[in-house]
């Protein structure tokens, strides 16, 4: 059966440290836009940590939620793209094909999660910062939309390697940059078509929820709600 990649994010483990945010931009050649562009809401954070505040001092609660492309199975960004640059791959990813993209930005408009970012200018790296660029990932040019790809370069590399070694992929063999770095292991990546995978198991937890599920996007990122502490359960 074909793979169907998904992710589980355990909000009870996430500490909001943003290791995922930095790991992602290091892995995927994401440009640092600078202060002026950031002030115009053009900073590109393929994964970001949302923070929500509840209540008034001193009874304030803060919640962190990492948000990235949900690789929706009914992605609203796909039907609106006039050139099929945003499309659904055979393995369940929402692919973003940079050379097809003509920069209409309808996809970003349609995305309810705000996870698509546009290259308003050709990105620039002050040399020699460009030496860090990952050769396995394209450097996007102006006029092209970009977003989280679940580190498709790592998925492809692992698939090619497994094929070369004539063996199936192992669960946990593929880890996107964010998943690999997360210290409390809040992020888990895996094949949702494999009932034995860790991701499948965690996705069926009693704490499972999805972001904006009511919009019918069928996101493939499952969030596990923050749990609460009950004295009786933990006696």
């Amino acid at each position, binding site marked *: 059966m074909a793979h169907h990649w998904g992710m589980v994010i355990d909000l009870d*483990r996430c500490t909001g440290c943003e290791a995922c945010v930095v790991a992602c931009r290091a892995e995927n050649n994401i440009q640092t*836009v*600078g202060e002026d562009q950031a002030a115009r809401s053009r900073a590109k954070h393929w994964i*970001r940590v949302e*923070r929500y505040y509840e209540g008034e001092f001193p009874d304030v609660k803060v*919640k962190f939620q990492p948000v990235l492309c949900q690789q929706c199975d009914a992605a609203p960004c796909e039907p609106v793209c006039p050139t099929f640059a945003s499309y659904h791959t055979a393995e369940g990813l929402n692919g973003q094909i940079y050379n097809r993209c003509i920069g209409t930005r309808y996809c970003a408009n349609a995305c309810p999660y705000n996870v698509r970012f546009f290259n308003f200018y050709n990105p620039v790296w002050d040399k020699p910062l460009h030496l*860090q660029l990952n050769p396995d990932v394209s450097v996007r040019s102006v006029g092209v939309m970009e977003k989280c790809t679940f580190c498709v370069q790592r998925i492809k590399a692992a698939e090619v390697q497994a094929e070369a070694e004539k063996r199936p992929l192992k669960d946990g063999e593929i880890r996107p940059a964010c998943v690999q770095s997360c210290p409390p292991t809040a992020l888990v990546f895996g094949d949702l078509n494999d009932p034995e995978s860790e991701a499948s198991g965690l996705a069926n937890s009693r704490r499972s929820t999805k972001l904006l599920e009511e919009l019918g996007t069928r996101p493939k990122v499952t969030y596990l709600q923050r749990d609460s502490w009950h004295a009786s359960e933990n006696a």
Partner: protein
Amino acid sequence: MDRRDFLKISGLAGATAALEGCGNPDHQLIRFIPEEDLIPGIATSKPSICTLCPAGCGLIVRVMQGEAEVTRDGRLGLLKMGLAKKLEGNPAHPINQGKLCPRGQAGLQVTYHPDRLKGPLGRVGPRGQGQFGEMTWDTALRQLVSQLSDLQLSNQESGLALITPPLRGQKKTIFDAFANHYKKPLFVESAFFGDEVIRAANAASFGQALPPTLDLAQSNYVLSFGADFLGTWNSPVAQAIGYGHMRTGRPGQRAKFVQFEQRISQTGASADEWIFVQPGTEGLLALALAHVIMAEKLRPAAAAGHAGSLIDGWSQALPDYAPEEIAERTSVKAETISRLAREAAAHGPAVAVAGNAATAQTNGLFNALAVNALSALLGSVGQPGGITFSPAPAIKESSLSLEILASQLNSGAAPVKVLLLYGANPVFTAPLAWGLRAALDKVPFIASFSNFMDETTALADLILPDHSPLESWLDDLPVSGSTRTIVSVAPPAMKPLHDTRATPDVLLDVAHQLGGDLAKALPWRTYDEAIQTSFAALYKEKGSKTAKDADQFWTKAQEQGGWWSAESNAAPVSARGAPGAAGKAAAPHFDGEANDYPFHFVPFASQLFFDGSLANLPWMQEVPDPLTTVMWGTWVELNPRAAQKLSIQQGDLLEVSSPHGKLRAPALINPGISPDVVAMPVGQGHEHFTRYASRRGANPVSILSPLSIEGTHSFAWAATRVKLSVAGRGKPTLFGASLREASAELEHR
């Protein structure tokens, strides 16, 4: 316009691209012969060590072939070389077990920073003007050797001073040997967010002059008094790994975590209960909890052992610390104190830790001792799920602080002739009140090994830039985060990009040239020889199941990223701690009268800039602060009600005045802070620190009052009071555009 102008303008439209475009070798830089046998496109993994915070996590560096512009023999050209492309945690390293924090990930940008110092520099023009001329290493070393050999080896002070962060491993050996060769050197090893207070408290309470190693993975109840243990305190990655397991790693069991502080920190945001406590009263609160536990016979008083006996009144079960007495002083309700005490006693293993602002008040040592006593009472010290200690060698307490050095220099009591700066930016991490800047002006010769031009290095006379960590031989003996014996080592992950030299190698070279006893004390020619010596000694002491001789042991250690024991070797908790520590209840003192300076000022370690040493990294500037989403800037946080009272709106430029200075930064309204407190991240406000951080924002350290922590030489950086006034309009750059309140639709529970 005519055709000529048209072509001219179109020629301008576009920046320089990579030089490969034109396909003609005559128009390109020359290519040097590759020095490494690399296959393009194929990555190799090399171990390394992260040096950006004291935790000492192990790294795996993904190295791939790339083409870099380098200079060889005075010629500029392109060289195909192995380039570090990505940092990951080393899965085998016991401290971080394959994980890595955001700062560790950004360490890559240190190597490739466009403003790195590319070779030795000598000052031209007056000090502080920032004019430097390039020089060769030979000239630079000659100058340094000549300055050092001029220092008199008399019975009086030699005139040598050094400022470094707390050093470990063979670097410490080399620096110590260097310093001790001269009479009465003034050797300051300090860090702004250092852990001297916690070490002093642990030495007294538990006989271990080390920060604690927490076994959170098996904890059931965590009481944190201000410690940002998931962000910037102690060993954040190791602690976060344990935290994740503590939450959902044990089916059916989920620990409770309570945080006491004045401002919701990144760690506090994850607490099950976040409780405001008056600044400096954390110790009182800890002892009130202990009082309840003892009064209700939930744990025997003797369980606290020596740690408890250090506290005045412990043997009488702390009669002065009943919750009703303490509630008003701490602002924590008596019922809450009683309830938490009962919960903690009933849900072991329970552990209490103190850190950050709680141990940076004038009574910080008392607070730490009180929390230690509480931990001991709860029975978790030296036990699974509690506090343990690494078997690493204890850190010797230094009697010299930056403040003392500055005052001695200013008063003329210390005739410093040569100052060596390594890994430190004291002008940034010292409040103006210490007069450090003026003190440095009195030093005739300052040499810096920094690889960036920062505000302290800008005052140097000679700069001998170090390699970046990824280009260096590294070794480390981590002091917390694991109870295994760990000696990390890593060869350079890549060759140097610039004409820099590893500082330990420079010191060894200088020692060799100075000759005499110093050369005898430092017999190695290069740093890796020094590290190899330490590994030979380690092999002799520990032996090895897999290596048949010292050479093989050394090779294997380099491949793995270090040597670590297979088993835990937790250091024993001793009942005989250092006597005479300050166990008497001490109230905190604050500088500034409450009438004139109504707010407590809490500078805090930024998750991204730490103590400001990482502000030069563009990734760290652009990643939003976890709690406020601010990018490329700084802010002053205050409570909405406090803002309303002063008619302050989000974004207003505030003037923050302490009794010792003032600064300006935009206001950020934050519900998670007490109305009597304003907070500011440390990290911005650099005068000089590369194009990304220079003259950006304001430095809260500059206006702090020069108070000390009683019983120590440490700086009480949380003890300043300030007043606010509106000075204009500012506009912080927020990623989230505004702080959002969780609405009903987004409510997940």
